[in-house]
């Protein structure tokens, strides 16, 4: 078990700087998820922690010791790769034990450690097969077993579930969560799937273009996104955004009239999640007239596209609420569910 600390980490590929001034401190036992759009540098960062990629600048500390120049094998880490990366010429058993053999652990000890790992992942019947004779999900289980048996200080996962189909992904996600609960190893998990991030993470590190956009528990990031990017990235369906000009301490256009947050000036973007938009049958105090443009059935809920004055926004309503396209109705934007951002800087206001 160990802490992981990144101090002013930079990474350049030639002229191109893909990570700049990255600072992060991960607690012992913590499960941290790096979340972000494709190309934001999540994998690069993880691979620098693993030692598979050189660190251009800054310090990486695992368990308090500087790791920048150590080989991957000497960092006390284990890694699970996106495409499993099992050794195709070895049996499942050998794949799992190979790393231990290399570290000089005795045969009896390996046998002793193999059993619980194999049982935990349900791999007992596959031990003598080659990786090609397994399905994707089984292969990834072997890869997790291979990482687990080493009892590493830090577990690293690089999009381990993204090659699997949706159902299996859910299954294995639960399994990883369960394993973390029992093993309690410090873990860093890279994904661009926010559901995975939300369900697994103690703390999400939301990244964008090589920087940390926001850091916090899933609840924090969801309920108080720090930037426009964070607000737009987290949450399905996406948050609605509306642009306003601040005039005399209020946001207003012909229809809408809302108090502006303290200190707001110039352009302000108002955000509200579709689930927070209240749809009312009749006009009420503070309600706004809106027109139904489209109605998508999503099973539990319907996602309704509305036009409200010059703005268009989505509302998520219970599926039994029947709405026709072209129908006029009223909506209310509850004040405690509104997020204000400075349009220019993207920073949260209030």
């Amino acid at each position, binding site marked *: 078990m160990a802490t992981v600390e990144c101090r002013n980490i930079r990474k350049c590929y030639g002229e191109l700087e893909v990570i700049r001034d990255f600072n992060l401190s991960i607690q012992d036992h913590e499960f941290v998820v790096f979340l972000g759009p494709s190309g934001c540098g999540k994998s690069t960062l993880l691979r620098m922690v*693993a030692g*598979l990629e050189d660190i251009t600048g800054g310090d990486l500390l695992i368990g308090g010791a500087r790791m920048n120049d150590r*080989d991957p094998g000497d960092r006390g880490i284990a890694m699970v790769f*996106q495409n499993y990366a099992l*050794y*195709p010429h070895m049996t499942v058993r050998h794949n799992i034990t190979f*790393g231990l053999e290399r570290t000089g652990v005795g045969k009896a000890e390996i046998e002793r450690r193999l059993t619980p790992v194999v049982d935990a992942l349900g791999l007992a019947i596959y031990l003598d097969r080659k990786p090609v004779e397994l399905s994707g999900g089984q292969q990834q289980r072997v890869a997790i077993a291979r990482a687990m048996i080493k009892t590493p200080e830090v577990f690293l996962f690089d999009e381990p579930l993204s090659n699997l189909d949706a159902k299996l992904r859910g299954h294995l996600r639960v399994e990883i969560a369960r394993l973390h609960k029992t093993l309690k190893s410090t873990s860093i998990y890279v994904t661009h799937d926010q559901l995975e991030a939300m369900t697994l993470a103690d703390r999400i590190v939301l990244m964008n273009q090589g920087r940390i956009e926001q850091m916090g528990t899933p609840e924090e990031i969801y309920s108080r996104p720090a930037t426009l990017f964070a607000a737009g990235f987290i949450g399905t369906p996406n948050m609605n955004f509306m642009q306003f000009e601040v005039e005399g301490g209020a946001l207003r256009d012909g229809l809408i009239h809302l108090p502006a947050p303290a200190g707001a000036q110039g352009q302000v973007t108002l955000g509200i999640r579709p689930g927070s938009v209240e749809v009312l049958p009749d006009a009420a105090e503070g309600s706004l007239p809106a027109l139904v443009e489209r109605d998508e059935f999503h099973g539990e809920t319907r996602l309704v596209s509305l036009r409200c004055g010059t703005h268009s926004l989505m509302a998520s309503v219970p599926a039994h609420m029947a709405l026709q396209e072209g129908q006029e109705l009223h909506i209310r934007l509850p004040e405690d569910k509104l997020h204000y951002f400075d349009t220019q800087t993207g920073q949260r206001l209030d």
Partner: protein
Amino acid sequence: MKPVTLILRGLLVLAALLVLLPLVWTLLNAFKTNADLLVSTPKLIFAPVWDNMDYVLGRRSVSRALMNSLVVCSYAVLLGAVLGVPAAYVIARIKNRATQEAQFFALSLRFLPPVAVAIPMMVIWLGLDMYDSRPALIITYMTITVSITIWLSVPAFERVPIAIEEAARVDRLGPYAVFFRIALPVAKLQVLSAIAFSFILVWNEFLLAMMLTTSRAKTLPIIASEMSQLGMSVPWGILNAAVVLLSLPPLILLALVGTGLNTAFSKKSSE
């Protein structure tokens, strides 16, 4: 079966016969007496005799050439593999200007007409007083085996997923262990077939051998070609026997590697 399939099958059979019949014919003729050979209607049923084989195998020149061929080709292939396989791995894994040039150089060795190599080589070996010796031929053949091994092994190593090697590094393997324990075993079949191919090329090599040997170091192809000039008439039986002998090692090798290759390609790929 559809008529199209039938026609295509027929074409395949025809093509196979085109390749196989001359080989079968050579094999049969190697065991015929001259009387059976020199008839206007070719005989399929005849009393096989070992005379031709005995003659070929009994000649001192043949046994010496056989030894020469085996020694020269084995060493050239062995050295070619020892140098070429690691070189191919480096070229496949480290992409920079130097390795790109090295890869092209290996390839360009194959573009060179053999005569252009033979004459300078002849002068060099004469100057070093090593003309008509096995070492001279081994080193000359190494240019062929190294370049072929590199050329065919680079794609073999490129097909080994990089993530596997990274996983191995996390499993505490150093660069040499990654090569010997992971990359080489995974690319094994393709690398072996590259090496086998280089063996077949030098085993069949004629021009360089002819120009670089006169007596002591003559290889089997040279001796076989000399047999076509025994006396006035062409000794068909003996010639055929020599050809059969010459073809055996490459065929055995091909059979060995061929089955390996077949299993490699029929298996589900791991990616």
